């Protein structure tokens, strides 16, 4: 615990303090007797806070107005209010609804529990989201306190929330379970439900969360020998009959995912309630906006903030939100409403400048309103005045999205524009490296050909007929070539700028043109480019001047835009930003390793800053055949909100599809330009740290030259003060940006979180995927400054710390030898272990420096769904697939032990896809997929499957399509045969296994964490 924290510095440095303090608390909370109470109390706390605001009144009073009020669009608006409905048709709804009733009674005195409270108590058991480790599923009603006690051993039925028991669990594991990890719906119920569910409240088998794979085990068994001085391996000490933990006994991510799917999949998630934990990112659900932003836009690490900073320090759970302001939403959730407040612009709080939103409380008959963020009382502008109804709500509540929705957009006035002038439509500039190798490899020709069709699909605003985006073209090697493609020209004109030392834009008119108007000239140009440079022997390239030129062009045209740079080699030509090959494997595992992740010169940083200042986003397609210094050249796309694509050893005939699909996606995707994001919070806490593809000039404004649907910013919050449990914690994220059609808008996302003074509440509301996203980003940021070894230690320690704190304060006493995981963090260790094994944090000889820098950068802008897949790849058994169904086959855990020689598996992590063919794969399957008689005939060099009409091939194609869907990067397919050399890369992605070059297995890691926890507790 001696390390300095990186992102989470305060938590790290204070944890000691926190821990030091904890003993007293521990004594206090940890006491088994009262343990029952906390859960009771905490739960209500959430609802209580919400109650006055929204929930309480809604429930009982005439539901009439409410449901109707919902925007017509949301037809299902009714559901939430009907929570009482007994059948948990939509599991979510009841879950949250129950809190409300429970609250009041339980607070004052549990005893006084009215029927309502009973109900509450009963329901507790079935909470999904809320019931973190608390509700032992199977508990019978009679023992309300017990749920809180996370003591596994004692409870006969289901083990602790997630008690990781030492060895010995295997025997009891349900059979289905261990089989090839065929979790499916069946196993869970098998394990957990059946027994516990005795006459309990409606089946609503939420219990699964508990996912105690470790079946009930005898108390003694769990315990490791008291002291765990030694590594996990040794811990198997005395009692353990086996040395190893059974992999099936440890929490399975697959299981968790499947359970969440089973319980919440396909349902409507209504955002009306404060502090409710949304379904997992892997679950399909429909969001209905009732005043809080959809989890697609904002997903938090926890939905219940600790009310004091001391608590936060104690728990060490990062308080963060992963914001994807432009996340793509399914069509049935509809686009955001556009609010226009006329010439005066959006109504905002005078003091904190928060935008009008559902958190504003109207008072004095509607003449004034109190800001929910800073409590300032503001006059309502005359044009905005509206009477209040008897509940103090404006009569137009349902007509105004900004009063009833969590996410919406404002039309920005000139005050929000650069130089107070309406923005011009953005421009795309395509900049192609035409150095010798690119021309020879056919890449230049490929790009030029593809551009002809891609340009037909430039992004546009919803109502527009044609895209307003203008396009420009530049080619370059050691010099830059600009093209004049004005529609009036008979042939394009080429303007060569060789002054790369001080690059400039040689033309204004005719450089950026409307593709529709200039199409013939553009096509003429694209036809000519490959020939024009066919004889060029120029091998050297420049890079920084290229970006500079694009930026200057946009600046001269006074519009925001995006540069598409197709680059392939280390820029060694004499120019600013010239780079030398500094790839040095010897630096690995030294204090200087971090320099591999840092840019070579300050030029790139300054360049990126300029780009951001002028709304110039840079997307870089790299085609390196050797070291190109991704850490340097990649900095620009990262800081400007662009995307970095890397195709190592690109071969036109193999890798074109992947690249072209990326290019198409990159051109088409939804994007906002010249954006500034501001995250406002209610008093008591504030956003302190921002991680992502952003640039920050000061501590509050997040500048992004562009932000697209795949870019997420992770924001960390810190306490300023005490948070009120009744007011909760409010977050408003406002993004000012320019649309593809050249309109200036503000996109607002609001989210209310609950607060609690109970640590248990905090732990119950955690979201592991968001946590991992946060940890990954902060760790990957930290590697720039600190040795990776230290970063890894910090990660392990913080994991241990969180768990230790939980153990100390929330879990009921149990044998010290037991590792107890909060329900919400059950799979945190496996994810953390995967993070620790990522090539960024753990160098491997087969991973080039560039690849590490590339992955580091990639993760920095990832959203939760992408990071989840990235750190826990999806492994699908293809051989068991039902060729008639279009559904994905149930995934299996990422471990070699789940593979079978006679199987075919598909693995995807968002970057690459592997089709693994077992040594004795069924020939008919091989035949079906590859149309070759046997495995030996399969050509592993292909990067796409042959066109075969068999059902196997078809359904495999469908599966691959589903995996690829919505993923920002087109995954490169590698075909791997068991026990052949390329299998190594595949095996690296089996994250539960021990790494080939270091990196512990899941089980080992758990032991290691357990040891650390024990140390902390002692």
């Amino acid at each position, binding site marked *: 615990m001696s390390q300095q924290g990186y992102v989470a510095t305060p938590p790290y440095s204070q944890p000691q303090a926190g821990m030091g303090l904890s003993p007293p608390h521990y004594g206090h909370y940890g006491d088994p007797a009262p343990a029952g109470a906390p859960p009771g109390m905490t739960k209500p706390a959430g609802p209580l806070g919400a109650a006055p605001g929204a929930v309480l009144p809604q429930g009982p009073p005439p539901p009439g107005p409410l449901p109707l009020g919902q925007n017509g669009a949301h037809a299902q608006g009714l559901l939430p209010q009907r929570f009482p409905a007994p059948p948990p048709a939509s599991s979510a709804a009841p879950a949250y609804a129950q809190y409300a009733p429970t609250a009041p009674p339980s607070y004052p005195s549990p005893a006084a529990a009215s029927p309502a409270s009973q109900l509450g108590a009963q329901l507790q058991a079935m909470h999904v989201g809320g019931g973190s480790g608390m509700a032992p599923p199977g508990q019978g009603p009679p023992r309300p306190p017990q749920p809180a006690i996370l003591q596994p051993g004692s409870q006969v039925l289901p083990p602790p929330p997630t008690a990781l028991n030492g060895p010995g669990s295997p025997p009891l594991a349900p059979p289905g379970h261990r089989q090839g990890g065929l979790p499916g719906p069946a196993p869970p119920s098998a394990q957990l439900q059946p027994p516990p569910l005795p006459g309990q409240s409606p089946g609503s088998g939420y219990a699964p969360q508990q996912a105690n794979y470790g079946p009930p085990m005898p108390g003694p068994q769990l315990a490791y020998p008291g002291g765990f001085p030694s590594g996990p391996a040794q811990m198997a000490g005395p009692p353990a009959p086996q040395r190893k933990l059974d992999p099936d006994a440890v929490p399975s991510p697959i299981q968790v995912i499947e359970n969440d799917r089973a319980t919440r999949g396909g349902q409507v998630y209504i955002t009306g309630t404060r502090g409710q934990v949304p379904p997992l990112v892997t679950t399909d659900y429909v969001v209905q906006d009732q005043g809080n932003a959809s989890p697609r836009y904002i997903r938090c690490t926890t939905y219940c903030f600790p009310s004091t900073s001391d608590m936060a320090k104690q728990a060490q759970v990062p308080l963060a939100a992963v914001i994807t302001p432009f996340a793509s939403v399914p069509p049935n959730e509809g686009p955001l409403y556009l609010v226009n407040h006329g010439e005066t612009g959006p109504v905002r709080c005078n003091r904190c400048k928060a935008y009008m939103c559902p958190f504003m409380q109207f008072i004095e008959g509607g003449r004034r309103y109190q800001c929910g963020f800073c409590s300032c009382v503001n006059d309502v502008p005359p044009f905005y005045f509206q009477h209040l109804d008897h509940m103090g709500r404006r009569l137009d509540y349902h007509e105004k999205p900004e009063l009833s929705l969590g996410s919406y957009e404002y039309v920005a006035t000139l005050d929000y524009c650069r130089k107070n002038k309406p923005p011009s439509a953005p421009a795309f500039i395509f900049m192609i490296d035409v150095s010798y190798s690119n021309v020879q490899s056919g890449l230049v020709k490929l790009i030029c050909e593809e551009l002809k069709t891609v340009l037909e699909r430039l992004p546009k605003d919803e109502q527009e007929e044609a895209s307003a985006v203008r396009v420009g073209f530049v080619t370059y090697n050691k010099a830059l070539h600009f093209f004049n493609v004005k529609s009036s020209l008979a042939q394009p*004109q*080429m303007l*060569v*700028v*060789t*002054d790369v030392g001080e690059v*400039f834009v040689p033309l204004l008119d005719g450089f950026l043109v409307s593709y529709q108007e200039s199409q013939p000239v553009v096509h*003429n140009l694209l036809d000519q480019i490959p020939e024009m440079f066919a004889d060029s022997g120029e091998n050297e390239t420049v890079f920084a001047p290229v970006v500079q030129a694009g930026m200057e062009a946009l600046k001269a045209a006074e519009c925001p835009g995006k540069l598409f740079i197709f680059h392939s080699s280390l820029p060694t030509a004499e120019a600013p930003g010239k780079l030398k090959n500094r790839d040095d494997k010897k630096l690995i595992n030294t204090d200087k390793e971090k320099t591999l992740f840092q840019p070579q010169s300050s030029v790139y940083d300054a360049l990126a800053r300029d780009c951001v200042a002028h709304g110039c986003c840079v997307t870089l397609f790299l085609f390196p055949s050797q070291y190109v210094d991704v850490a340097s050249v990649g900095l620009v796309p990262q800081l400007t909100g662009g995307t970095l694509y890397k195709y190592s050893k690109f071969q036109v005939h193999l890798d074109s599809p992947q690249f072209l699909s990326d290019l198409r996606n990159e051109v088409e995707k939804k994007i906002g330009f010249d954006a500034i994001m501001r995250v406002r919070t209610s008093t008591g806490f504030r956003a302190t740290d921002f991680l992502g593809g952003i640039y920050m000039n000061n501590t509050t404004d997040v500048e992004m030259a562009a932000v697209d649907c795949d870019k997420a910013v992770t924001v960390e919050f810190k306490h300023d003060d005490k948070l009120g449990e009744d007011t909760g914690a409010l977050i408003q994220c406002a993004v000012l940006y320019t649309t593809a059609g050249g309109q200036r808008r503000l996109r607002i996302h609001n989210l209310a979180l609950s607060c609690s003074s109970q640590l248990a509440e905090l732990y119950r509301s955690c979201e592991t995927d968001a946590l991992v996203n946060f940890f990954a980003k902060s760790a990957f940021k930290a590697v720039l400054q600190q040795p990776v070894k230290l970063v890894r230690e910090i990660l392990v320690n913080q994991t241990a710390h969180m768990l230790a704190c939980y153990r100390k304060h929330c879990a009921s006493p149990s044998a010290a030898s037991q590792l107890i995981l909060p329900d919400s963090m059950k799979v945190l260790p496996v994810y953390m272990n995967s993070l620790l094994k990522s090539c960024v944090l753990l160098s491997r000889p087969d991973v080039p420096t560039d690849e590490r820098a590339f992955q580091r950068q990639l993760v920095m802008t990832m959203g939760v769904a992408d990071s989840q897949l990235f750190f826990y790849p999806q492994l699908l058994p293809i051989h068991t697939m039902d060729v008639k169904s279009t559904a994905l086959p149930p995934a299996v855990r990422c471990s070699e032990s789940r593979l079978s020689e006679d199987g075919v598996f598909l693995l995807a992590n968002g970057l690459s896809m592997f089709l693994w063919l077992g040594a004795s794969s069924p020939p008919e399957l091989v035949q079906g997929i590859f149309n070759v008689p046997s495995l030996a005939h399969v050509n592993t060099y292909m990067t796409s499957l042959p066109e075969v009409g068999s059902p196997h091939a078809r359904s495999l194609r469908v599966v691959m399509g589903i995996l690829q869907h919505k993923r920002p990067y087109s995954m490169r397919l590698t075909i791997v045969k068991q026990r052949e050399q390329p299998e190594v890369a595949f095996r690296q992605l089996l994250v539960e296994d021990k790494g080939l070059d270091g990196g512990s297995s899941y089980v080992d890691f758990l032991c290691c964490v357990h040891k650390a926890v024990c140390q902390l507790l002692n």
Partner: protein
Amino acid sequence: MATYLEFIQQNEERDGVRFSWNVWPSSRLEATRMVVPLACLLTPLKERLDLPPVQYEPVLCSRPTCKAILNPLCQVDYRAKLWACNFCFQRNQFPPAYTGISEVNQPAELMPQFSTIEYVIQRGPQSPLIFLYVVDTCLEEDDLQALKESLQMSLSLLPPDALVGLITFGRMVQVHELSCEGISKSYVFRGTKDLTAKQIQDMLGLTKPAMPMQQARPAQPKEHPFVSSRFLQPVHKIDMNLTDLLGELQRDPWPVTQGKRPLRSTGVALSIAVGLLEGTFPNTGARIMLFTGGPPTQGPGMVVGDELKVPIRSWHDIEKDNARLMKKATKHYEMLANRTAANGHCIDIYACALDQSGLLEMKCCANLTGGYMVMGDSFNTSLFKQTFQRIFSKDFNGDFRMAFGATLEVKTSRELKIAGAIGPCVSLNVKGPCVSENELGVGGTSQWKICGLDPTTTLGIYFEVVNQHNAPIPQGGRGAIQFVTQYQHSSTQRRIRVTTIARNWADAQSQLKHIEAAFDQEAAAVLMARLGVFRAESEEGPDVLRWLDRQLIRLCQKFGQYNKEDATSFRLSESFSLYPQFMFHLRRSPFLQVFNNSPDESSYYRHHFARQDLTQSLIMIQPILYSYSFHGPPEPVLLDSSSILADRILLMDTFFQIVIYLGETIAQWRKAGYQDMPEYENFKHLLQAPLDDAQDILQARFPMPRYIHTEHGGSQARFLLSKVNPSQTHNNLYAWGQESGAPILTDDVSLQVFMDHLKKLAVSSAS
């Protein structure tokens, strides 16, 4: 040989040389007392119909410091096959080729009529002529259109194997790559950044690592210049391309906001043009032709900022030392001009704008390299169009009237030394025994470089007599001067023209009359004027005038006949009689007076004055006035207000302007339409006569003069009124209302007053 006048004329015809003195005072002391220095106007390439060039190389004196060329003045020993150099007296063997030489079988260079002879050098590579157009695109639409047409037209006039290149500029500078198919390609440079020649060549890709090329094939290097310069291509190859390219040329696209001048990067454009040629074709005849429509407004060489509210510098500003940018800009262009000259290229400036365009700063580019300077109001005028066309005119041999990269070397016999030269040349800094320490004009050298010259290009060359008074020259001794001009003929041949002249020495004390009679007052006036103008470039105007006045007075004192203190007794001999009058008009000329002229105009006038031959120079000093009337054939009349009569038509030629002026009555008649009546056909003829004569002048003149047709009371009549001697002004009304001319509203002194003063001062013993 009859008179000196004929002698002088004959010499000019044959050798293109006119001396201020045709008999030379034999000692330094006497020479300085002559006031007007011993000097000559040399027209190195004077057109000679009767001078076929000889196809062999000249024979040089073997003394390394001499190397004079065998000439008719040399003593030849036919038997011993020896010749004595008449400059250093070295005896030289004839080369083997001359073995057949004898009194009756002389090589041309020994014949007296070949005092000027031209040799064609056969060795050495022949390099094509190069024309690099540097075109301003910050022009009005119709101006640009006219310019484009002129340029396109010029392509047909160029020698087919000449290389052409195109650079356009505005805010940026574009070097166009010619011979591109399918796409037009150009290299663009920032207009604000000065680049070294090396950088320019690097950026244009002209400094390719030639290694692979050379290794590849030995044949390659030969063609190298053609291959490497994508920017300069033979006209016949890219004729069509370039025509299209010029056709598509657009105005500078960068927006010019209200109250701003367009950003014009003339300085960088020229720098790039110079750098391009420097790298690719050093020491090859090349002409950079700059077409500009306004002042440079950015980058190095910027003359004025782009704020319209700040006007371009005037003489007033310059006198007040208020011309902030002038010095820096001048320095930039001087540096360019010197580099260009060193490479043997020349720069023409065609500036067409209503306001000034920075000729003052850029003048050295044309002045030092022998380029042309043309100033007009618009490219869409016949003045520009015809002037430009005339550059490509051909002589009777069908050769272009232009020569490149000339070196003029002057050798003198030992009594003389070279003091300097004034003309479109730069010093080559070749010191030698015949170089004087006293400089007049560009001195300190015996060789000059003239990068561009035509058959009328004339230099003033100044000498110093160094013979000491006590070392008399034997009777009949002659001083000799040899002018050796090596140049690249427009046919791309290298040629050497040699002119050797000799004049008699005379003792100024005993033979002053001879010397006096041999005074060439026209040449002297022009040579003195050149000195004056040369000084005016660096000195204050009044100082120069004072200097000129003093010289004139001294001359009159020396050569006038008078009784002391009796002004009325003052007389000048015939050979001096016109000289004071020339000086009078010179004082009033725009070469020395800046009043009413912009700095650009002054530079323009001075530029031409420093390169034209004697006749044209005299016209510039004292314009010619012809009078047309019913009373007889047209006659030259005095350039005097008394010549402006109501029933006359006047034709004035000032070199820069041709003015036709209709007297009051004539104008009324014309208005009444008499010329259209058959019975007044003679009037019609009278009106026509000056027009025809003017046409004749216009045809021959380069640059095309401004043609002004005006009448009594017309606003344009000021051109005439400002030139004539104001013998009648509003101050001396005695002639008012009489038939004898028109009064001029001026306070300038008239010739009469000037002469009176001169006489008074000349006879005064005080001065």
